[in-house]
């Protein structure tokens, strides 16, 4: 493929990527709902320079593209952050100047994507000083942002990267009905969240229904203490958001009148109409109502998800995906028909009543029904084996006679996961024009024995087996004093990893 295929996002005044490839999918909605001025953090242009990365060709591996196909003896060519060509060795011409890496015997996949993560928010070690995931001081905190609590030195981050995860959606916890705004990151080391933000990812709002909000506030004898209270709480704030929007509509109309009058000198000079006091939480909710902000909703039970879809219909918003959603299989027809995605685990269950009806065929049934299905971790440990969890879900489906292709299983942690975050035009598959977020595996990624050999983010080599970068926190903590010594890093050539035992 040629360079002109590449997406080169341009940055609009509101930090919104408006490239041809994106089709302004993430653009600011210009529908009937009123728009207050841009939020302060969105009004600054996002400065993302083009990535400079060397021209690299990974040659000879089995490519699992994440878009449904598998190519034996393939080539992936990438440069300056983007994939230029993907295909069988015979069809991809590797330029003379490219660095060729022989990965014969390996597998290559897109970088994995975790659609539900608290890395950096509930950092490890789990100490009071690290506990930044739930602003559980009132049940609606639409104004808080995961980005503001994110700790880039969380030791869980390099471990997730070493497991092939290149992108994660960092969400506030689920103590609150509306926990706050999520942030999509790339797992590239940086000094702050600003170094790690996924460029152009749509804003995200985290909602949580069910047991968590009613337990957290019910124990304090506050609302909500029941599922009834949960829904009443939602209606209250969405109504408040609509009324807030109406105030701005009114102000905008008055301001236009004022400007016209000032220009025409029909009336004596008047002060400009006062802008209503701003409420950033309500403005974020307005964004959700307009579709500009993706709604990611923690919900377990089938009946409750249907209830939330009724709420969404009342107020005119869309749910991008239900998270956890262990009972999604019960309503997969509705979810498919309404284009609502699901992010769930392979087998977590039972730890609370609303997680009691997990079945291990959930993901398989969802994919069979045409639901945008993704597999998430919600855990600093599980994020390190997303590929294994996908393999387990695939196996459970097959064992039960649900025929799912293994490449569909990979899509749960790549292309479908990218859709959940609204970044499917940018990453999640090995296709020309996509970001060069790439993982080289020692063997079939659906095998328990396969290990990550190498990871590229935006075409940059960010991880090589055995060379995991310690975070600041881990330095000098005594690991090196232990015996026996660290194992030697694997050879630089990614293809030279151990054979599966």
């Amino acid at each position: 493929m040629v360079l002109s295929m590449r997406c080169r996002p341009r940055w609009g005044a509101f930090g919104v990527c408006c490239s041809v490839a994106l089709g302004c999918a993430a653009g600011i909605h210009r529908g009937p709902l009123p728009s207050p001025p841009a939020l302060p953090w969105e009004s600054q242009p996002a400065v993302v320079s083009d990535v400079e990365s060397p021209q690299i060709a990974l040659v000879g591996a089995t490519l699992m593209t994440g878009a449904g196909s598998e190519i034996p003896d393939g080539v992936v060519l990438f440069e300056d952050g983007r994939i230029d060509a993907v295909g069988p060795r015979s069809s991809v011409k590797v330029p003379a100047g490219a660095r060729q890496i022989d990965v014969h015997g390996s597998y290559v996949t897109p970088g994995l994507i975790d659609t539900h993560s608290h890395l950096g928010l509930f950092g490890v070690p789990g100490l009071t000083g690290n506990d930044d995931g739930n602003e559980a001081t009132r049940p609606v905190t639409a104004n808080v942002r995961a980005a503001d609590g994110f700790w880039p030195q969380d030791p869980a981050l390099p471990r997730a990267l070493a497991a092939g995860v290149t992108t994660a959606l960092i969400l506030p916890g689920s103590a609150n009905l509306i926990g706050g705004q999520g942030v999509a990151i790339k797992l590239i080391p940086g000094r702050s969240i600003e170094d790690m933000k996924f460029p152009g990812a749509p804003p995200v709002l985290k909602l949580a229904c069910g047991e968590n909000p009613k337990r957290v506030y019910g124990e304090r004898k506050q609302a909500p203490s029941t599922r009834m209270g949960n829904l009443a709480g939602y209606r209250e704030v969405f109504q408040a958001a609509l009324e807030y929007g109406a105030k701005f509509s009114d102000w905008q109309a008055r301001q236009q009148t004022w400007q016209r009058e000032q220009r025409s000198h029909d009336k004596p000079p008047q002060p400009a109409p006062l802008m209503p006091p701003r409420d950033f939480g309500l403005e974020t909710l307005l964004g959700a109502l307009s579709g500009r902000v993706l709604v990611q909703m923690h919900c377990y039970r089938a009946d409750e998800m249907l209830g939330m879809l009724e709420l969404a219909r009342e107020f005119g918003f869309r749910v991008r995906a239900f998270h956890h959603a262990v009972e999604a299989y019960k309503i997969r027809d509705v979810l498919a028909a309404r284009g609502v995605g699901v992010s769930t685990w392979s087998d977590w269950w039972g730890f609370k009543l609303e997680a009691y009806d997990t079945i291990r065929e959930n993901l398989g049934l969802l994919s069979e029904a045409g639901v945008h299905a993704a597999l998430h971790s919600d855990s600093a440990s599980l994020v390190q084996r997303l590929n294994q969890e996908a393999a387990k879900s695939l196996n459970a489906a097959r064992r039960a006679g649900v025929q799912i292709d293994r490449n569909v299983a990979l899509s749960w942690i790549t292309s479908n996961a990218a859709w959940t975050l609204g970044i499917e035009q940018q990453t999640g598959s090995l296709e020309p024009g996509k970001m060069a977020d790439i993982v080289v595996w020692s063997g079939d990624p659906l095998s328990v024995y396969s290990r990550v050999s190498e990871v590229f983010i935006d075409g940059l080599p960010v991880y090589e087996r055995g060379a995991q970068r310690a975070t600041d926190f881990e330095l000098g903590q005594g690991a090196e004093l232990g015996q026996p010594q660290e194992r030697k890093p694997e050879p630089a050539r990614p293809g030279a990893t151990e054979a599966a035992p």
Partner: protein
Amino acid sequence: MRRRDFLRGGASLACASVAGSCGAARAAEPARAWVGATIWLGDGQIIDDATLVTNGERISALAQGASVPSGAQVMQAHGFILTPGWVAVETALGLLEIELERSTLDAEPRADEHGEPIHAAYSAADAYNPLSSLIGVARREGVTNAVATPRGGLVSGTSAWVELIDHFPGRALVREDLALHANLFELRDNSRPLALSRLRNALESARLYARSPQAFDQGQTRELGLSPLDLRRLSQVLGGNLPLVVRVARAADLLRLLELGESYQLRLILSGAEEAWTVAPQLAAARVPVVIDPSDNLPTSFSALNSRRENAALLASAGVPLIFSSFDPYSVHNLRQLAGIAVASGASRSSALRALAFEPARAFGMGNEYGLLAPGKLANFSVWTGDPFELGTWAQEVVIRGRSVSTRSRQNELFERYRDLSRVPRGRAGLPPADGQTKR
């Protein structure tokens, strides 16, 4: 003679019997033979193209070309792998239903007690529920036995060795008061010195009690601060009659416990042990078994800063008796995945296999009957469609005491109910057709 497929769409084990039905037999188990299987004995040895014969609840023969008694049910098991049934340890399996529903919790006292109490007489056997919904989920993945373990407090109580049978009533409890369990990890109210001094005091009291229980009963000893039942149980760990399992993470704590074990002649098992690899030679020299989760690699606390994925490989190669646990009772079914993770992180396949059955059986004093496939041992094993550590295989059959047991749980029933959504009621919009197959 008739055949049955074990599973639609999958490979099938052919069952042929001269005597009659191949269905799960009741009462006296007939002789059964699995022919042509690859058998992972449990101690690391593998026998290809072997025959395993059961008679009643025990294995009567296991060898290449072992003769099959006439009248035995014969299972053609070419291409299948037989392993011992996994043993889940350090698990609250059968002692709770739903973690966040206090009314379903028996793994620990329900009231929030202050100060990490000593509950030596707290016995898992008093609570173990063979009908718990967690058990079927675990059994489906090849778990045949568990050490049902209480938790919480400084001394949590005694565990029970249980069989994950699928019928009720039946003999699920095999041995109660199997081991005493203590916890020195992430203590809430006690610092390390306070916790250890309380543990030593309790052991001293138990020693005094054991010298003359009659004197204690007649009020002739000093105040011992514990109940007679607690003292009796504690006294059993002195001298190693009962194993003492201690949940502990930090390397320095592990060494301190080895010293404690030596001074009271305890039969220690150390559990959690995230930093154990740093003191592997000392653990090996003391011949102390260690229970770990081989997927642990996060510095989850200041007691586990040196947690690393190679823990299993390094401990095994140092000669430490190694046992795997998922700890979480809701993921007991993942034991075989944990073994795969250990292998991928450098452990040998045989050490990973030993960690799932052979070593736990031995460490908890049940090695005479369990943990190894050999003539005379109990016939607790699973028949796998391929490598049991891999993610694309499953247990075609699970056998407990010679009997094929159910590999279904309520999760399978839910799947079947929702397999065809047109059969799911939706009020006036649609009731499913009357159907004799609709369950309950």
